[in-house]
């Protein structure tokens, strides 16, 4: 049957990964061309078998094959077809299959898009990816097989997908997040391959940059989608809970951000090599740690749907091997990672490393806050939980120097920057951001220190980013050209940086305003009741029944007016309370009116006596800016990648020109020449 074929195909994928782990690396070490050449077909094979296996499972979901345990546990014949397809990753086993599929996609992408990179390097990178893949395939087949059969006794209908996951946000959140998580494996593989080969010049940084940026972009979008989903689906109006599972995805993001910047320094200035390698190892290790935390079931949260200690142990072992192995290799090779560049204490390099340290410190804070409760419990000291205020407080401390450096870093020169030359810029930026902060706050009732701080910081980023663009466009020789021409003369990767930083400022504005000026009311309301909140009048008009394909429930209807005279209507909101009978769970679907400057948010609570209902009303100023900022950052990543890819293609072209001369042992020097040529042209 189809599902058995899927299982078999997964075993073949494991075999492929084993071959991939051995042959190309062996070939690279022995300089054996044919063995190196096996890397590409093996990577493609691994991908195809995994993809087939994934399709087989999807088909089982689509056709309601409840003889498969996983399908029976996570689907139901009443589930709409699109949720049947996405239910594949609604539980543990299937989401792991998605994980390995995405891993295979990254691997095959490296195999296909690395024409500009020496064969030996690609062979090593793919071998490392193959090694990591072995671990994951073994894990799937041994401890979390999605194709496990319930035959001969299987249920007539399935237990349904967790209602929380029956939502559009959930359709795209996990694949995006996994793309990010798993994508750091490529940066990791490049770093390890560089360590193995001993080719520790900065070229590996250049090759792994676009991959790192891609992974980081996916992770950014994935986290933002998760936050957005929590906002409208959980009915608490919160967008970040410092939930351990959120933290698990946030840590690789923080280190990934540091890695992205550190790679840039290593590529351009040939320094911080050793630090960059360490970050590459850490980013992937934290991704694995995140997987371990979520999948082992030691964390209790919305996400840990299925948990099993043996699985946790397996991932922990894998984590130990990956981290331990790579750190040993690092320790052996690190002394060779000599940095050649010189720089003064006040220079762009130092500011970038400063921000790297701050990002690392932030990761430490999150790691401590996430792991301390686990350690505390394991030591027998009793259960504790660490509240959101801890994280918030620490992040406020960290963000001040972070933003300061973020703003002046791009304005500064490499090697040496005289502080005096920056003075004017800084004074202007400070004056503008402070006045902007006061102006924005004047439109709200009261001022708070936190809001002022947040707004000054975001204004600071905005102004200095603009200053930086002006500095770049003015200083160059093209003064007489039009502004548009001058702006387009900046490289896409430069615009990538600009968008990344502006996106961060936009997000910071959203976070600041929504945290300081949101208004909330939990109310008992009877049909016809009117309540005023934040300059709007909310009228509860009543509740009607709701019948969905696999749920039933109530819809609370609220009309919003500009004032209590109820003359001018702003919007009509419907907040749902759904009951899913198969899983016997209730779900809240908030009614939200989204806007640029505010969201109106209504959630329906429980039914009280006398026809009254509990209602939760929110006004969330600028909350959408949080996610808009994240998408801007990811867009910046896309821009940078375009640039890099372009360069990659150019390197390949130049290399072809040298191809006549090329023999394996002079290949490396050709690439070096190609780089010089392409840098000269850029």
């Amino acid at each position, binding site marked *: 049957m189809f599902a058995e074929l899927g299982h078999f195909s997964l075993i073949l994928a494991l075999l492929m990964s084993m071959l991939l782990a051995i042959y190309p690396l062996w070939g690279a070490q022995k300089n054996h061309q044919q063995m190196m050449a096996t890397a590409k077909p093996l990577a493609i094979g691994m991908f195809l078998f995994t993809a087939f296996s994934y399709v087989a499972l999807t088909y089982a979901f689509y056709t309601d094959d409840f003889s498969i345990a996983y399908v029976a546990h996570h689907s139901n014949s009443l589930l709409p077809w699109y949720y049947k397809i996405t239910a594949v990753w609604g539980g543990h086993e299937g989401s792991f299959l998605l994980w390995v599929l995405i891993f295979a996609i990254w691997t095959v992408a490296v195999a296909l898009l690395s024409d500009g990179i020496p064969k030996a390097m690609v062979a090593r990178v793919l071998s490392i990816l193959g090694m990591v893949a072995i671990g994951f395939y073994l894990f799937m087949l041994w401890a979390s097989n999605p194709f496990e059969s319930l035959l001969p006794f299987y249920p007539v209908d399935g237990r349904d997908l*967790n*209602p*929380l996951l029956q939502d559009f946000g959930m359709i795209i959140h996990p694949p995006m997040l996994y793309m990010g998580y798993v994508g750091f494996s490529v940066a990791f593989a490049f770093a390890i391959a560089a360590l193995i080969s001993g080719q520790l010049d900065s070229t590996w940084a250049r090759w792994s940059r676009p991959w790192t940026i891609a992974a980081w972009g996916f992770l950014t979008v994935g986290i933002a989608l998760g936050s957005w989903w929590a906002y409208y689906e959980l*009915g608490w109006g919160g967008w970040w809970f410092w939930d351990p599972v959120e933290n698990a995805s946030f840590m690789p993001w923080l280190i990934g951000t540091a890695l992205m910047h550190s790679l840039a320094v290593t590529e351009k200035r040939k320094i911080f090599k050793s630090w960059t390698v360490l970050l590459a190892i850490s980013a992937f290790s934290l991704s694995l740690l995140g997987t371990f935390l979520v999948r082992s079931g030691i964390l*209790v949260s*919305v996400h840990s749907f299925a948990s099993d200690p043996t699985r946790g142990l397996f991932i922990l072992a894998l984590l130990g091997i990956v981290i331990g192995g790579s750190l040993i290799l690092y320790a052996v090779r690190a002394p060779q990672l000599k940095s050649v560049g010189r720089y003064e*204490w006040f220079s762009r390099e130092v500011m970038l490393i400063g921000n790297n340290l701050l990002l690392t*410190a932030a990761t430490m*804070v999150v790691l*401590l*806050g996430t792991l*301390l409760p686990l350690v505390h419990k394991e030591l027998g000291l*009793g*259960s*504790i*939980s*660490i*509240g959101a*205020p*801890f994280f918030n*407080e*620490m992040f406020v*401390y960290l963000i001040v120097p972070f933003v300061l450096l973020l703003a002046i870093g791009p304005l500064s020169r490499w090697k040496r920057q005289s502080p005096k030359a920056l003075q004017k810029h800084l004074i202007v930026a400070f004056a503008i951001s402070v006045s902007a902060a006061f102006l924005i706050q004047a439109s709200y009732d009261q001022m708070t220190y936190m809001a002022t701080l947040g707004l000054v910081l975001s204004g600071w980023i905005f102004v200095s980013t603009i200053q930086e663009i002006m500095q770049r466009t003015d200083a160059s020789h093209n003064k007489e050209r039009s502004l548009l021409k001058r702006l387009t003369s900046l490289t896409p990767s430069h615009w990538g940086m600009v968008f990344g930083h502006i996106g961060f400022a936009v997000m910071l504005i959203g976070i600041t305003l929504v945290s300081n000026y949101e208004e909330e009311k*939990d*109310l*008992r309301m009877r049909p016809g009741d009117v309540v005023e909140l934040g300059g709007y009048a909310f009228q509860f008009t009543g509740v009607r029944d709701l019948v969905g394909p696999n749920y039933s429930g109530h819809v609370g209807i609220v009309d919003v007016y500009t004032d209590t005279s109820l003359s001018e209507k702003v919007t009509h909101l419907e907040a749902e*309370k759904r009951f899913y009978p198969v*899983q*016997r*769970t*209730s*779900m*809240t679907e908030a009614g939200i009116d989204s806007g640029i400057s505010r969201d109106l948010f209504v*959630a329906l*609570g*429980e039914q*009280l*006596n*006398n026809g009254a209902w*509990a*209602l*939760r009303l929110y006004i969330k100023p600028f909350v959408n800016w949080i996610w808009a900022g994240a998408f801007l950052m990811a867009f910046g990543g896309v821009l940078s990648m375009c640039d890099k890819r372009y360069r990659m293609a150019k390197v390949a072209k130049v290399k072809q020109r040298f191809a006549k001369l090329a023999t394996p042992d002079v290949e490396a020097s050709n690439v070096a020449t190609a780089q010089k040529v392409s840098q000269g042209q850029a």
Partner: protein
Amino acid sequence: MNPRRQKRLMGISAIVLLVAAAVWMMLTALSENIDHFYTPSEIVEGKNGAMPQVGQRLRIGGMVVPGTVNRDPDTLAVSFDLVDVGPIVTVSYNGILPDLFREGQGIVATGRLTEFDFIVAEEVLAKHDEEYMPPELAEKMKGIKHVKPQNIGAGQ
């Protein structure tokens, strides 16, 4: 000391100072934000020989005793009793209870202890799973499975 070494020394001591300050800040923030977890019997009888202080912030996990959920007819104020295997602790809360809040169900509340057996909660959590029981509570109730929450208190 030559100037270069002096510079290096300054740099290193600055880093050490910064790290020390950061660690100190982190520990202060941490000590203010740790919520210890208690079960109702631990609140009344003490945990590892130490009684929780009145006024302390804490987390409590227990089963909602059936028949004890009292709602104020005009507001959202609600109070209910929690139990594990011994004494009962009363929790009061003002707000919307989670979707899965039900009598006989395991819940977790975060709040402040205002009397020796009374908690004013800021947050009440019930997990999105029918059979969910806080893991701490499940551990506590291991081996005493015959005491079912339905059999304690009023019963239905």
